[in-house]
């Protein structure tokens, strides 16, 4: 009995039935092996790509095709402009100026509203590239934005939809960060003066940190802050944990998209690169439910 037929193609060929034209049938031989290999390749391709492609189609392509350019679903859809309006370049320039003025008005109204409260709040001026901390209408810290990345959605959404979105200050809902909000140290009181003398420590300079945080505001606004300088090696673990949390947020977004029949809100993200000291001051200073006045 030939126990080595797989490794002997000639023998295999001799044992194989031929079809009417004298060719080997697909049950074996070189072409059989080839077709088997091809089937396997096909199977592999199906197994590997079917799920990711379905995921891309249902979570990205279909939602993007259906995307209605609105910053947040809570905003009333404005009537679409009649196509008959044609604008000259002069009119366009005037309209752009009016849009700028309306944005400025919304921004100043928001600042005025926030100035009437006691809490520290944020003021983000994208036009002048500054993010300020204010208390009662007074700028206590002005932070220059070194670089920023604004979501493509801002360019797609008309002023008519953006204006109602920015006419009220935003409220922070939750945040994730590489640094703690308050660097609390718990100390147990010593029992007597001898124990107090033993446990006495000299203050040390604050631990080296890397400051990365994301503020999730209501109405779909997401502000990401990153320090300008490369992080110190000591802080890499915190950054890893922060990025893992961000991935979790991404997964939540994807699940929301897959679950909902209609296209859910996608974040209106603004990423700001600032100095480490500025980023730290902002994160530590603002209350957990801080508010924000945004100028586009």
């Amino acid at each position, binding site marked *: 009995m030939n126990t080595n037929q797989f490794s002997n193609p000639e023998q295999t060929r001799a044992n194989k039935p031929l079809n009417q034209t004298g060719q080997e049938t697909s049950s074996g031989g070189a072409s059989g092996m080839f077709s088997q290999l091809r089937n396997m390749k096909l199977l592999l391709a199906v197994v590997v790509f079917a799920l990711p492609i379905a995921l891309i189609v249902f979570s990205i392509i279909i939602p993007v095709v259906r995307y209605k350019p609105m910053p947040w679903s809570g905003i009333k859809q404005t009537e679409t402009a009649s196509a008959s309006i044609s604008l000259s370049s002069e009119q366009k320039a005037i309209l752009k100026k009016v849009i700028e003025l309306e944005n400025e008005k919304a921004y100043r109204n928001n600042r005025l509203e926030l100035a009437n409260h006691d809490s520290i709040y944020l003021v983000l001026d994208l036009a002048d590239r500054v993010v300020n901390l204010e208390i009662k209408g007074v700028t206590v810290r002005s932070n220059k934005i070194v670089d920023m990345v604004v979501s493509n959605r801002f360019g797609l959404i008309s002023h008519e939809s953006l204006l109602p979105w920015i006419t009220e200050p935003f409220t922070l809902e939750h945040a994730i960060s590489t640094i703690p909000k308050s660097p609390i140290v718990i100390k147990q009181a010593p029992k007597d003066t001898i*124990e107090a003398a033993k446990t006495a420590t000299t203050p040390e300079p604050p631990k080296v940190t890397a400051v990365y945080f994301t503020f999730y505001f209501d109405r779909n606004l997401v502000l990401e802050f990153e320090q300008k300088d490369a992080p110190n090696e000591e802080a890499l673990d915190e950054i890893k944990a922060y990025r893992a949390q961000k991935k979790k947020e991404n997964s939540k977004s994807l699940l929301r998209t897959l679950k909902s029949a209609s296209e859910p809100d996608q974040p209106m993200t603004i990423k700001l690169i600032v100095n480490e000291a500025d980023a730290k001051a902002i994160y530590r200073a603002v209350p957990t439910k801080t508010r924000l006045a945004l100028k586009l």
Partner: protein
Amino acid sequence: MKEMDDMNYSSKQGESRLKAMLMVVVGGGIISLLLCWAITANFNRLHETALWFKSKAELKATAQRIGLEKIGNYQQAVEKELQTLDKKLDAFQPVGTYIIINTAGNDFILMQEGKAIREGMCSTGSYTVLKGNDKQQWTFKTPRGMFKILNKIKDPVWKKPDWAFVEEGMKVPSANHPSRYEYGVLGDYAMALGQGYLIHGTLYKRYLGMPVTHGCVRMGDEDLEAVFKALKIGSKVYIY
């Protein structure tokens, strides 16, 4: 014999095909899941990128809302409103000298009419939570917000609160016991912000710029003197 060989051959072939299929399904499945994970982790970025083919926002809707014939008047009206808002916002600006204290960086800026006239280091709350033996607890942090100078004191005397004794493992004395009074530890000047919080001097100048206090704001001698002279009772103190 030949038939048995054929049967053996086809059963072995079937077995190996099954193995290969299993390997393909398991291996492919793992790769597939990895790809799905990558898509999930980068979902928002992919979604953003996919928007590139969408058309940009237009101005027509704004033109329709305002009306092209009214646009000039409308612009003027908005400009007037902006001026009014500006005046209202200006009313919040403090008159005279005020100070801004940064608890994250432990520094301060003395301001006059919106301009910085002096900058320096200070020390603010350490964020230590001291747990006493009788379930009492104190958090040493500097409060944030807007305050006013309520009182200005020369050669201040520190009346030690309970935590100062608990922290040193000592028995807490009665409210006005002589051991509560310490002289010379607060520097030459102090300014009261309310609720026991002060801006004062320090013996521990090497810790300026670090968060080491029990909630008060400590300054170096020269800075303290300048701030004391510049600020009046009622001057505003902004702490963030």
